[in-house]
C-alpha cells in the first residue's frame, strides 16, 4: 500500500511540476512540448530503479519507445480532430486514446514477432 501511495505522490508532484512549466511558457506551441514531457516516466523509472534495479527500468524504456511513437500519432490525430472535425478538446483527447492503444500495442506485438 505504501508503495502505491508513494507512486501517487511522486507521480502527482512530477506531473504537476512539468504541467506548471508548460503553463508559464510562451508561445503555446513551445509550451505544448511539456504536454509530452516524460513526467510519468521519470517518476515511474525512479521507483523502478529503487525497487528492481537498472535492468528492469531498461526493459520498461524499450517498451516506452512504442508508447512514444503512438503518442506522436495520437497528438497529430487530436490536432486534426480539433482543427478539421471541430471536436471539443475533451472528446478529441479521450476518443483518440483508442488510436494510442492500437498503435502502441500494435508496435509491441510487431516487435515481439520480429524477435
Amino acid at each position: 500500500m505504501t508503495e502505491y501511495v508513494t507512486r501517487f505522490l511522486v507521480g502527482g508532484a512530477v506531473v504537476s511540476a512539468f504541467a506548471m512549466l508548460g503553463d508559464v511558457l510562451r508561445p503555446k506551441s513551445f509550451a505544448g512540448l511539456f504536454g509530452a514531457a516524460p513526467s510519468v516516466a521519470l517518476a515511474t523509472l525512479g521507483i523502478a530503479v529503487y525497487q528492481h534495479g537498472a535492468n528492469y527500468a531498461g526493459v520498461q524504456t524499450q517498451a516506452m519507445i512504442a508508447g512514444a511513437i503512438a503518442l506522436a500519432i495520437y497528438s497529430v490525430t487530436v490536432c486534426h480532430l480539433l482543427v478539421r472535425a471541430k471536436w471539443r478538446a475533451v472528446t478529441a483527447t479521450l476518443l483518440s486514446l483508442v488510436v494510442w492503444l492500437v498503435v502502441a500495442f500494435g508496435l509491441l506485438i510487431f516487435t515481439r514477432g520480429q524477435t
Partner: protein
Amino acid sequence: MTRVHFSPSSLKEGRWYEYLIRFALGGAATVFTGLVSSRYGAFVGGVFLALPAIFCASATLIEKHEIRRKREAGLAGERRGQMAAAVDAAGAALGALGMLAFAVAFSLTADTGIAAAFLGASFAWLAISVVAWYVRRKTRSVRSARTKQRANDALIPRSH
C-alpha cells in the same frame, strides 16, 4: 518569430481544483503504470510510461481558459479554444519525438550507470524537443513568407 519567454501571469488563470485534478491524474497514471508492470511485467507496463493521460487534462484546460478569456471580452470563444488546444497538440507531437529520444537514450545507457541514464535521457528529451520545435517554426515562417511574396507578386500589375 515570437521568442520563447515566461508568462507567470498565466498561473493566475488556473483554479485550485484544476491543479488538484492534474496532480491526481499524474498520480493515478503513475500508480496505474506500476500496477500494469507488476501484473503483466516490465515490458507491457513500460508502454504506459508514454500514456497521454495528462495531455487530456491539459488540452481541456487550455480550451476552457481560452473560452473564458474570450467570453470576458464579450466574444464566443469555442473555435478559438479549439484552435488553442490544437496548437498545444501540435507541440505535444513534437514533444513526443523528444520522449522517443528519452526512451532510446535511457534504454541504451541504463547498464552504464543510473545517474548517467537519467541525465542523458532528460537531456535527449529536451534537446530533440527544442530542435524539432525550432525546425518546425522555421519551416512554417519560410513557407508563410513565400506565400505572402507570391500574393504580392500577383497584385503587382504587369506593364508588358
